[in-house]
């Protein structure tokens, strides 16, 4: 399973940069919308839809990236009270459950993609598969990130605690 670590790291790096890029595109599209409305006198027909598409990716990819980086907020009072061995075991179980959720989301997204295929978006007319594919992609990433954490040697404790060890 040692191959999973580097794969997860590469995917996480790519996800991180894709989110930053999505933010830049989102920002540009909204600024373009303001400019067209005031300077050109006609609001852009596609900017809002494009910006929201970029946002959807940032949210879904962020959901998956949060699994890899462990940044999602949680209540850790109970797990913190456990001895180290118990904590590692609990974290491992939670990571497996998260990976299973990723698999379900990927499957759920795949079905949704299938059900809605052939439609186009309202304003830009892009194939709706572009938007709806984001869910299975995020699910797959979440499954890989969750599995990698679960199988990480010594367990995957939150970053600051891992540093203390």
């Amino acid at each position, binding site marked *: 399973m040692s191959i999973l670590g580097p794969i997860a790291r590469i995917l996480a790096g790519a996800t991180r940069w894709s989110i*930053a890029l999505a*933010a830049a595109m989102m920002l540009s599209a909204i600024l373009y919308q303001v400019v067209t409305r005031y300077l050109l006198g006609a609001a852009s027909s596609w900017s809002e839809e494009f910006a929201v598409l970029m946002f959807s990716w940032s*949210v879904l990819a962020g*959901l998956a990236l949060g699994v890899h980086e462990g940044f*999602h907020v*949680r209540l850790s009072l109970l797990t913190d009270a456990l001895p180290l061995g118990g904590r590692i075991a609990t974290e491992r179980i939670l990571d497996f459950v998260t990976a299973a959720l990723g698999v379900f*989301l990927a499957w*759920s997204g795949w079905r*949704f993609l299938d059900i809605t295929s052939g439609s186009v978006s309202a304003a830009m007319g892009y194939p709706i598969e572009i938007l709806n594919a984001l869910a299975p992609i995020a699910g797959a990433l979440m499954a890989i990130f969750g599995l990698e954490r679960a199988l990480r040697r010594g367990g995957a404790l939150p970053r600051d605690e891992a540093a203390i060890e």
Partner: protein
Amino acid sequence: MTAIAWCLTAGFAALVTLGVPFAIAIALVITAALIVADIEPAFLAQSIISGSQQFSLLAIPLFMLAGELMSAGGLSRRLVDFASTLVQHLRGGLAMVTVLAALVFSAISGSAPATTAAIGAIMIPAMVQAGYDKGFAASIAVSAGVLGPLIPPSIAFVIWGIVAEQSIGRLFLSGIVPGLLIAAGLLVICWVHAKRNDVPRLPRASAADVARAFADGRWALASPLVVLGGIYGGIFTPTEAAAVSCLYAIIIGLFVERKLTLRAMPGIFVRAMRTSAIVCAIIAVSAGFGILVAQEQIAIRFATWMAQAIGEKWAALATLNIAFFLLAAVMDEIAIMVILGPMLMAIANRFGVDPIHFGAIIVTNVAIGMAAPPIGYCLFIGMAISGLSLARISRAIWPQILWMLVVLFLTTYVPSFALMLQPAGR
């Protein structure tokens, strides 16, 4: 209760207690509900995607980005320098600078932790150097962060506006008076602390110094005008104002202050988007949760039960405030707003509370939760900057929290505090 209702209530509580992150726990209980009720599995993906397809939500990452860009571009330093020249000679002056600079920064950023981070990073070391107790210095930066969500623009009000289907612009206005009241109380606390501990005063800045600091800080001081003037002048939507404020921060940071570099930009974007993802992931997955809660009529049933059990409006609001404060001690404030939003709105409607006034009550609660021990984003930032323990900051922060609770009481029972700045004719 039906099997779905059990999943959504007891199942969610169990997962969160076991340490499952809120966003993941919400998605897991939706999945469980789909399985037990034999609902089409595509519902999960569909609800998350539709939950993320809302233009108003884009204000969240963009206001976070604006805050990051302003800090990196040196604008928060300018705000501090200008506030310094105005009040540094007063008793507790340097602590007051923290509050005033946070007040102006709040009119740019809209996020509590961003406000504590931007101002605290400069002011906590400065206060300690000037002879303030470190615990007090950190606690005042943490409590000044509370102004972030109350003074417009505000990420918390954006979220509540979407959850409660209310005008975000009007909600923004409802937080100003509670925010200013909290700021005024914090200034008094600074004065009392400095007098009691005999913290040395700094010399009064000359008129020339004030003028110079104002000139140096003019771009930072003008940014609230760009954001708020744009929104209330009817020029931009809140989301567009957030984008314009990012552009403003980039231009000033790159070409005027010259503290921002193109090379630093990707890192700033990644940081802002990571913070935003924490909040937005919870909101997006909660969309499906909300649909199931509505289908099961959990919110309405609970509101009806509460109306029968409590009866009086004042008692219902008191109960809500106490419950929110206690819940915020163990749960993320944004998650409370999003998950319990439908139920809270059902209760407000049941008791005839004005929705804008109710929004102000909720967001004041959210803001206080950011600074109140044992968990709160501002507290964590304050601990990280000062290196102090939670216990040490908690001991120093109680007068501020007490004052905030007084303001919450006033906001709850004097509706005009939230409504006095509303445009005529609503």
